C-alpha cells in the first residue's frame, strides 16, 4: 500500500503510469452554461472528436471521472455543488476551468449571484480563456493538461496538491 507516496516507485514505472493516465482521461458530462455547448462540440462533434486524445466523455457520475471541465458560469448557488462533485471524484483528479466565467467571473464579474472564479472553490490545473473558447481551444487545454500529467510527480499528486509548475 502506498507505494507511490513512499516515493519508492521506479522511474520507468512512474512514466508508464503517467502515460496511462495521460491517455485515458474520463471526463464527466456536465456543462454549466454557454461554454458547455462548446465543450459538447469538442466532445461530440466529429470535427473535434476529443476521443482521439483518449478523453472519454462517458461517465455521468463523478465517481468514474478523472477530470472535470468547469465549463461556464459558476453561480453562488451552484458553487457548493461544484465543490461537492469535485470532492466526490476519486483521486487523482484534475480540473480544467473553461471560459472567462469559470476563470474569473467573466462577463458577470459585477453580478450579485456569480462566483468570481472557480479556483476559489476547487484547485484548477488548466485555464482555458475565451468566451466561449472554441472547441479547439479546449483541446489545447486538454493537451496542456496531458503534458502536465506526463511530467508530474506522482507522489506529489497523490498527496493531493496540484503540482506547482515553474
Amino acid at each position: 500500500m502506498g507505494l507511490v507516496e513512499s516515493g519508492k516507485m521506479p522511474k520507468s514505472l512512474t512514466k508508464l503510469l503517467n502515460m496511462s493516465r495521460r491517455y485515458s482521461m474520463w471526463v464527466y458530462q456536465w456543462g454549466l452554461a454557454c461554454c458547455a455547448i462548446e465543450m459538447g462540440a469538442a466532445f461530440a462533434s466529429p470535427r473535434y472528436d476529443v476521443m482521439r486524445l483518449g478523453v472519454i466523455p462517458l461517465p455521468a457520475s463523478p465517481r468514474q471521472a478523472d477530470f472535470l471541465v468547469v465549463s461556464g458560469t459558476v453561480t453562488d448557488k451552484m458553487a457548493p455543488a461544484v465543490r461537492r462533485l469535485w470532492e466526490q471524484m476519486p483521486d487523482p483528479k484534475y480540473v480544467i476551468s473553461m471560459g472567462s466565467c469559470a476563470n474569473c467571473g467573466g462577463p458577470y464579474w459585477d453580478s450579485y449571484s456569480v462566483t468570481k472564479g472557480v479556483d476559489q472553490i476547487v484547485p484548477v490545473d488548466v485555464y482555458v480563456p475565451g468566451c466561449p473558447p472554441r472547441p479547439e481551444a479546449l483541446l489545447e487545454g486538454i493537451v496542456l493538461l496531458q503534458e502536465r500529467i506526463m511530467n508530474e510527480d506522482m507522489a506529489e499528486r497523490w498527496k493531493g496538491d496540484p503540482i506547482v509548475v515553474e
Partner: protein
Amino acid sequence: MIELLALNPSWWQETFLIKVPIGLLAVLLPAGTIVYLYLFKAISFMQSRLGPMEAGPYGSLQLLAEVGKWLQKEDIFPSKADKFVFAAAPFVVLMSTFLLVVVLPAGPDALFVDLDAGIYLAMAVSSVSVIGILMAGWSSANKYSLLGGIRAAGQLIAYELPLILAVVGVVIQAGTMNMQGIVLAQAEGEIFGWGGIGNPFILTQFIGFVIFMIAVQAELTQAPFDMPVAESELVTGYLTEYSGIRFLLFFIGEFASAGVFSAIAAVLFFGGWYIPGIDAGSQVFNVIGPLVLATKTMIIAFLIFWFRFTFPRFREDQLQRLAWKFLIPLSLVNIALTGVLKVAL
C-alpha cells in the same frame, strides 16, 4: 490441439497451464477487441469521427492506458454503503462471465470442458449475474443505484426467459444440450436433404435467433434496453457509486459477456467453429476452429453494438411488455413449431 503438440499432460497440468491461461485470454481478449474495435472505433466511424488516435498507432494502446489508469484510481467506498456486499458484487458479475466461457467449444478437441448439459449450464450461470447487479445496486446506498439495480434485475429476468426458450428450439433440433454436439449437429445436418453447407441453425431457427439476439441485447443492458444504466436519468444506474478498479471490473464484465454471448450465439446458430467444406472431424479445425469461432463472434458482436448506437431506449414498461407479451409467446410458438416439425419429419 494438445495432441498436436504431442504432449501428454496430466489433468492438473492441462487445467492450470493450458486451460486457465487460455480461459483468461478467451474472456479478456474478446472484451478488449470489442471495446477497441466497436465501442471506440466502429461507433466513431458511424458518427464520422475517428475514435482514439493518440495512444499508439490508431489508438491501439488505448486499452492498456485504460487499465493502467483505472489501476491508479482511488477506490471509494461510500460511507453509507454496505462495504462487504459492495466489494463482493464485481466478483459475482465476473464469475458469471467466466463460467459462461467454460462451455464454449472452439474445435473438435479444443474445448475447456465437454459437458453433457453444456448449454443448460450456460443458461443457468448466466442468471447469476443478476445477483451481482442487485448486490451492486443495493449496497451502494444510492437512489440511482437502487433504482438502476432493481430495473436491471427486472429486465434481466424478463429476458432470461426468451433467451432460454430460444435455445430450446436449437436443442430440439440438435437433440442434445452438449455444445459440441450442437456444433456437430449443424455441421452434419442437412436442410431438406441438402447437406452442402450443413445446417447452421440460423436457417431453420431464424425466429429463435432473432429472439436470442434481442434477449442478449437486453441481458447485456445495451440500448435499446439500457434503461437500468440510463445515463439521462439514472446517471449510471447500479454503477453510479463504483469508482476505480471495481468499476473497471464491471466494465470488463459487461464487454466480456458481450463477447461470450456472441460466441454462444455463434455456436448455437452459426455452426460454431465449423465452416462448410471441410470434414467436421478433421484436425484442421483444432487450429482454425478458434479463429473461425472468433470471427463469427465478432460479426455477431458488431450487431450488438450497431443496434446499441442506433436505437433510442425503451421505457421500462415497454421493455417488459415486449418480453412478456411478445417474445415469450413467440418463442413458445417457435418451440411448438420446431417440436412438431421434429416429430413429423
